[in-house]
């Protein structure tokens, strides 16, 4: 009997060499079957064929920043086969800030930093309260004063000289924040019981969503001046901004409508039975729940609009894409397309990728209480 108490199992044997460790990982993930092995080998061959020339272009054969010390850096670049990073070194400030006066470029840089800072704290759930509103109420005027100047000893810079990253960030930020309340009203209108208001809202939303952004931008840049009384002119940047706002409002309305539809019917009925008026019901019961549900799709909409602001370069504003194209028209630097496109693609990627990761995080961590 004592033997059973002191039972000692044999030490477990290690798994077969071929199923554990690096070799096991290779077997399981890359060479599990004969056709998987074939696909892996083909892809490796393809990657080598693809990556070797790219690495040669980006690093080995590239002309680095040192070429700037020479008399004609563009000519040095043309002698080499690889990328011309001297182009970026020469033009990065133009691409980032457009035609903003060179010595004043600390101002758009600071404005961009403040705006990004505002967005970053807006992403933090600890700031989702009244405090956030005060930050924005202080931040936005500061950014505007930094950009336009004219007071506090800052030189005035007209909007035609604004460009690059501040324009991309500014157009999307202002566009979405102004379009958001409009979108809420349109979404409420679309669900209204009053036929005239419902039909007008549906007509607006579907008309705008049915046409490409570029036609709305053309319309705002060409037709806004016609809509106004003769002699009244309106700033080009403002026209593009109005176009983006009108366009975004329709898309945001659909996002908000999705949130409104997800609010259970019982909530509406409970509010009605308490005798709340329409606006009390909407403001106190429905919207707080609906907007919470729409936060993740709102972030996705924002990513879309952040990318779509690049379309303003077609109506000749110098946003990131417009400034990069403008830099390429310089006679001595013509032809370094891939370098400049890669540079701004990287900037867009960093912004959009981090926002999409944030939105994935939100989908996991927000609204967990109401999820079924």
């Amino acid at each position, binding site marked *: 009997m004592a033997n059973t108490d002191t039972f000692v199992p044999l030490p477990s044997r290690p798994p077969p060499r071929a199923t554990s460790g690096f070799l096991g990982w290779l077997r399981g993930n890359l060479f599990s079957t004969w056709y998987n092995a074939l696909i892996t080998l083909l892809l*490796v061959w393809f990657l080598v064929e693809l990556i070797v020339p790219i690495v040669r272009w980006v690093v080995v054969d590239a002309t680095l920043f040192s070429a700037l010390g020479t008399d004609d850096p563009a000519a040095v670049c043309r002698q080499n086969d690889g990328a011309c990073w001297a182009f970026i070194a020469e033009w990065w400030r133009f691409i980032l800030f457009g035609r903003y006066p060179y010595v004043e470029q600390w101002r758009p840089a600071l404005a961009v930093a403040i705006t990004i800072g505002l967005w970053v704290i807006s992403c933090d759930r600890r700031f989702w309260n009244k405090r956030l509103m005060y930050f924005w109420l202080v931040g936005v005027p500061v950014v505007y004063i930094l950009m336009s100047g004219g007071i506090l000893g800052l030189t005035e810079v007209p909007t035609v000289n604004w460009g690059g990253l501040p324009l991309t960030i500014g157009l999307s930020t202002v566009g979405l924040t102004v379009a958001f309340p409009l979108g809420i009203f349109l979404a409420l209108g679309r669900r209204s019981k*009053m036929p005239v208001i419902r039909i007008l809202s549906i007509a607006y939303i579907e008309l705008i969503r049915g046409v490409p952004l570029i036609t709305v931008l053309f319309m705002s840049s060409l037709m806004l001046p016609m809509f106004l*009384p003769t002699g009244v002119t309106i700033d080009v940047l403002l026209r593009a901004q109005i176009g983006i706002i009108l366009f975004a409002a329709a898309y945001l309305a659909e996002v908000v409508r999705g949130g409104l539809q997800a609010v259970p019917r019982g909530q509406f009925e409970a509010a009605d039975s308490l005798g709340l008026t329409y606006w009390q019901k909407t403001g106190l019961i429905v919207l707080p729940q609906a907007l919470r549900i729409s936060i993740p799709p709102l972030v996705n909409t924002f990513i879309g609009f952040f990318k779509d602001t690049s379309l303003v370069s*077609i109506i000749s504003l110098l946003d990131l894409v417009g400034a990069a194209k403008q830099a390429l028209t310089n006679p001595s630097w013509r032809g370094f397309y891939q370098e400049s496109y890669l540079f701004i693609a990287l900037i867009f990627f960093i912004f959009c990728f981090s926002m999409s990761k944030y939105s994935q995080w939100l989908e996991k961590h927000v609204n967990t209480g109401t999820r079924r």
Partner: protein
Amino acid sequence: MAQADTSAPAQEAHGLLYDPRARAVFYQVLTLAIVVGIGWYLIHNTLANLAQQNIASGFGFLDREAGFAISESLIPYDASDTYGRAILVGLLNTLVVAALGILFATLIGTVVGISRLSSNWLVAKLASVYVESVRNVPLLLQLFVWYSIITVSLPHPREEMTVGLDIYLTNRGIYVPVPLADPVWPLVGLALLVGIVLAFVIRRWAKRIQETTGKIKPVLWYSLAVIFGCPLLVWLAGGAPIGMDVPVREGFNFQGGIVRTPEFTALLAGLSFYTGGFIAEIVRSGILAVPRGQTEAARSVGLKPGRVLQLVVLPQALRIIIPPTTSQYLNLTKNSSLAVAIGYPDLVSVGNTTLNQTGQAIEAILIYMTVYLTISLLISLFMNWYNRHIALVER
């Protein structure tokens, strides 16, 4: 009682103010008045501005001579044709690039979406890298990249690059050989249609056999046989013409074959790869949304893997995939208007040239809106029909 008598009229007035129906009418009249008022104000200003610039409104300009050339067109067009025809050329170009883009984007999206779920680590990772990079960079920038790859990196026609089969890649365009005109070819096309119809008939026949006897026919092989067999037979019966119109270099350019311009190729590639990235995510989430138990249950009742996919997984996944894919198709069609940035003569591009020459801004924008709304409506109708076709039939 006397008290009630005196208060009755007051309550009536009170009642009108607090009557929800009366209020609703008031709000709606007010809204309509504001909208009409703003509309009237804008139209009034526009008419005044137009009168000042001596621009006649209306669509009369469509019959006037356009006077500009269009680089590629499906129908015969030259500069002496009317604005109306120029816009028609642009519309056809939009339709072509959108239709091909939808086809390629669906193919790319399906392959990449399934690849992201592959058990092969390298395949899954490469697919993720592709999806993340195309989704997070603006389409406009991607179009510029494609355009610069084609016009800058591809060789001049003098030192053309070939991928075999007499297909030549040059920075002036991509040259592809086409079969020489022969009376047999239209018949071959007809035979292909007949083959597709026959394939449907075979499918129904196989289904009936299976329902009555339980025997499963290899429908896929039969269908492929009739779809490709019918045209092949007609081609052989017609004397098997093999003459090809091969592109040949003449001077500094190629003659013969068909040519796809760099603008068209860049736009098609950009739209397909960009939208393909979005469709890939939709396909992936659609497949993931089918519970694992469904696959396991299907396997445990003895279905083969192919039948599991065909009968259990795909019907459920498609229901989730179709609606968001529809909006991607609509996005692709609308995004084809970015053609104006790289100079492909689509509707917006031609329309803008017209607009700049005639000053008919309102009419041009009205044409854009009508066309895009019609296309959107048609795609939605078709996809809604397809969605209903595959939707879950509940009690």
